């Protein structure tokens, strides 16, 4: 089969994966956006073959994947900063602990001590 067909397939795969990374980075930031984005970047890079320039689809996929990486990282940093701020404020910490207890039966301190034990 013609190599150009495989280049186009890889480029299209990069676009779809980067779209999945973008969407998941907005609605569900975490590990999956990173996985999708890294594969999008890789497929976009590999689609170049011996060409000097990337095909359009690969370029779009690479740009979107880099955007997804940035957005996901920003969302994670913002989430952890929010959590840190809440944990520092006694009133908000108590409210969070109450919410967690209503859902899981465990207080925030119980969960944190279990987490520390797991890390050890």
């Amino acid at each position: 089969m013609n190599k150009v067909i495989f280049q186009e397939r890889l480029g299209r795969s990069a676009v779809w994966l980067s779209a999945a990374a973008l969407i998941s980075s907005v609605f569900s930031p975490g590990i999956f956006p990173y996985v999708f984005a890294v594969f999008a970047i890789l497929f976009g890079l590999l689609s170049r073959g011996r060409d000097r320039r990337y095909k359009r689809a690969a370029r779009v996929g690479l740009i979107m994947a880099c955007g997804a990486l940035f957005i996901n990282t920003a969302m994670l940093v913002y989430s952890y900063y929010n959590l840190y701020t809440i944990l520092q404020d006694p009133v908000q910490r108590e409210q969070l602990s109450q919410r967690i207890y209503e859902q899981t039966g465990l207080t925030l301190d119980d969960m944190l001590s279990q987490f520390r034990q797991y890390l050890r």
Partner: protein
Amino acid sequence: MQAKSIRDLQADARYSLLGHLGISVGIILFYLAVFMFLSSLNTSGLTENILLSTLLTILLNYLVSVMTGIVEFGVSYVFLHLQLEQPIRIQEIFLPVRENADKAVRIKGYLCFLYLLASLPSLIMSAVMNGREGLSYWLPVGAALAVGYLARLFVTMVYGVIDYLFVDFPDSDAAHLLRASRRMMQGHRLRFLLLHLSFLPLHLLGLLSLGLANAWVSAYENAAVAAFYIDLLRLRTRPDEG
């Protein structure tokens, strides 16, 4: 005739992988599965004697290295054939090893012995420094580890294309192949090292995917090393040499 640049080698690697990502990643995953299975074997509980247990561990690690090294010949077969745009038949991937098993074991046995020698300083230092803590332990052991790592890196740079030579020249004997690898790599060791280092950013990026994408990066890297080998052959058979 000039040697190809790192970019050209990477371009050749990408070109060879087009349409063949399945088999190239598949052989990498097979190699990883064999490596993980063999690495899970251990000698703990066989004996209470510390010295004997250490020697058994070293011996087992050596045997595991040789066995996984033999699987590397299959990996090299796939990427060399991709580079030469030759068809790959699954049943032929380990044919060179099956037909020349003794030579394969000799080559890998010799290389793994060199790697073992390279790791001896750190093993001896950690045994001598046993009982110490903090910097007084880690400083000398860390230095010994660094020396061992550099020695191992040098061995890899000297014998970097031995796997491809074994697959490409099945009729040559082990000593001849090892000599040929040393000769071919003269003047190209730094380029070989830089080629591997050029994939470091992709490997680090692959960590974000929990290591899943590293199989694809390894396939890309192996394809580049195969392109490097082909380039070395091209340089050694240039017209003015006859």
